[in-house]
């Protein structure tokens, strides 16, 4: 069974996901970070595929991408590292990145290699739903990779229903109309999140963008099954000499 399916079956509340750019801050830090995230109680992980032109990201994740690329991270190396990580880590791992590196790798080869390396799903913000359904879905399904759709405060109810129907995992609720890490907190998002909660979607929901601390995490979890922290965590490990310790300190500050 897909690890994401198992997770959402057994846990309904306060699911914590952490995003980290692969190959950041040092090329070989990813394994230590991911192992520590599991040990500290994160429920699933989003591993960022670094890209030269990350359109949907704010400065923190952009910079982490630039550093990771300068460190020599590639999609191929990322999948090799993931294969090693999977020997010790059992929680779900999603790959998050932009469509162009995936296209160059080759869709079929990517789906096969990612699945074999132990990825459970993908989030590709610039792969629109229609394109995914028409051209990529059958390949991803064949390799049991879940594709995660995004919903924003501007998404119409009709489209949310359409996304829910076509989703085979959780839906990523973008907390505000923004790039990642643009704002602090999700105070302005509560009406929108409550509106979505009342729609009783069949898919689980996880809130992301602008979740940065225990307070915003808990607020998001009132309306959804969980929340994702990205920029704030990337910042927390960016100047660290001991990424495992920094990871532990950060996750503890959210959960305890």
């Amino acid at each position: 069974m897909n690890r994401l399916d198992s997770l959402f079956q057994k846990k309904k509340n306060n699911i914590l996901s952490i995003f980290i750019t692969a190959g950041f801050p040092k090329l070989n830090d990813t394994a230590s970070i991911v192992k520590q995230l599991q040990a500290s109680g994160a429920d699933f992980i989003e591993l960022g595929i670094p890209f030269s032109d990350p359109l949907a990201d704010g400065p923190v994740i952009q910079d982490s991408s630039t550093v990771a690329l300068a460190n020599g991270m590639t999609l191929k190396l990322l999948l090799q590292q993931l294969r090693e990580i999977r020997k010790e880590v059992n929680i779900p791992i999603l790959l998050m990145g932009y469509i162009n590196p995936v296209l160059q790798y080759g869709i079929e080869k990517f789906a096969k290699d990612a699945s074999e390396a132990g990825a459970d799903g993908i989030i590709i913000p610039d792969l629109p739903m229609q394109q995914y359904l028409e051209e990529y879905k059958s390949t991803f399904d064949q390799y049991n990779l879940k594709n995660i759709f995004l919903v924003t405060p501007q998404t119409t109810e009709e489209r949310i229903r359409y996304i829910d129907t076509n989703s085979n995992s959780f839906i990523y609720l973008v907390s505000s109309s923004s790039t990642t890490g643009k704002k602090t907190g999700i105070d302005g998002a509560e009406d929108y999140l409550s509106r979505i909660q009342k729609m009783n979607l069949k898919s689980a929901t996880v809130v992301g963008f602008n979740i940065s601390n225990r307070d915003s995490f808990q607020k998001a979890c009132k309306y959804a099954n969980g929340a994702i922290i990205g920029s704030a965590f990337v910042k927390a490990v960016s100047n660290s000499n001991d990424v495992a310790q920094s990871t532990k300190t950060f996750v503890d500050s959210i959960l305890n």
Partner: protein
Amino acid sequence: MIEKVGHSEFSVNEKGFYGQFGGAFIPEMLYPNVKELEDNYLRILNSEKFQTEFRGLLKDYVGRPSPLYFAKRLSEKYGAQIYLKREDLNHTGAHKVNNTIGQILLAKELGKTRIIAETGAGQHGVATATVCALMNMECVVYMGAVDIVRQEPNVKRMLMLGAKVVPAESGSKTLKDATNEAIRDWINNPVDTHYIIGSVVGPHPYPDLVARLQSVISEEIKWQLQEKIGRDYPDVVVACVGGGSNAAGAFYHFLDNKKVQLVAVEAAGLGVNTDKTAATTARGTEGVIHASRTILMQTEDGQIVEPHSISAGLDYPGIGPIHAHLFKSERGTFVSATDDESVEAGFELCRLEGIIPALESAHALAYLKKAKFKKDDVVVVNLSGRGDKDLATYIKYFDQEKK
């Protein structure tokens, strides 16, 4: 006047593609903005109100029609009948204003109050700042930090016109990065803001929208040639291609007339076989840039490569999807000109015809030296802009040549 989508094999289809190229590879955050535009642009462009205002402003404000000038000395030198389409004589000094006039009217019709734009050479930024002043709209222009230095006069012009110029500090700090920043701004301001893209790039419907607004160039070439030579098409149309808006406009009404050779000149920089180049079709592969599936310069790992050209307006690692389609289908002839060849062609036009061309347009002129024409071939070179903004670069080159 306004054709439906999918009317020819070289126009965009209902799904937003030119052949296999185009589409809208946008994050969900941009879906409502792009959808609103897609649902409304043809209706608005086709409305009598829009056409009246658009045509009126092109005539009285921009100064259209732009002349089609028979370049006698240039013709003698290259042994062909060479005409220059004088987009350099437009208000603001380039073809860019044709698009910004159209898009600001569209933005008004959509109820938008804030305009954002990206710019490379600054020509599109100036053309956007100009129409924003005209229509009393807030204007924010993103420009690569490197371009802000090399195109300083245009930065000053934008500021005079009341625009805010925001430096793009990421990546190569040029046009590609300015476009990223403009797209990020749009993600952060989805309701009140219209993004005036300056070229035939970006998500559908932008490439089609911009091509239609620029198509006034070939519309005029048709009747101007009819008047001058009694035939409404040339044998060859030559235009430079960065993203490709002036080329799209100059080719538009000849796309289906296969008697017309369409020549697109890319910027080779220091040479197509060096790593300092912007010759996309020569060096690029298929992929997605700025939400469009097209041809771009990238690494094996799918990272977008920093281009190089002496001309800031051609310093872009992709081309519009319409051009990728013209290249792939072999309807277009794609060639390139180096920095040196282009500067020389620019100087040559000064000496032969008394016209200082923009460095971008100088790339199109550089093709004349490479081409083999028959004496009675009618060749139209789209002179997309004037060279005032490039004086510093020309002078630097001129001084070096004398040493």
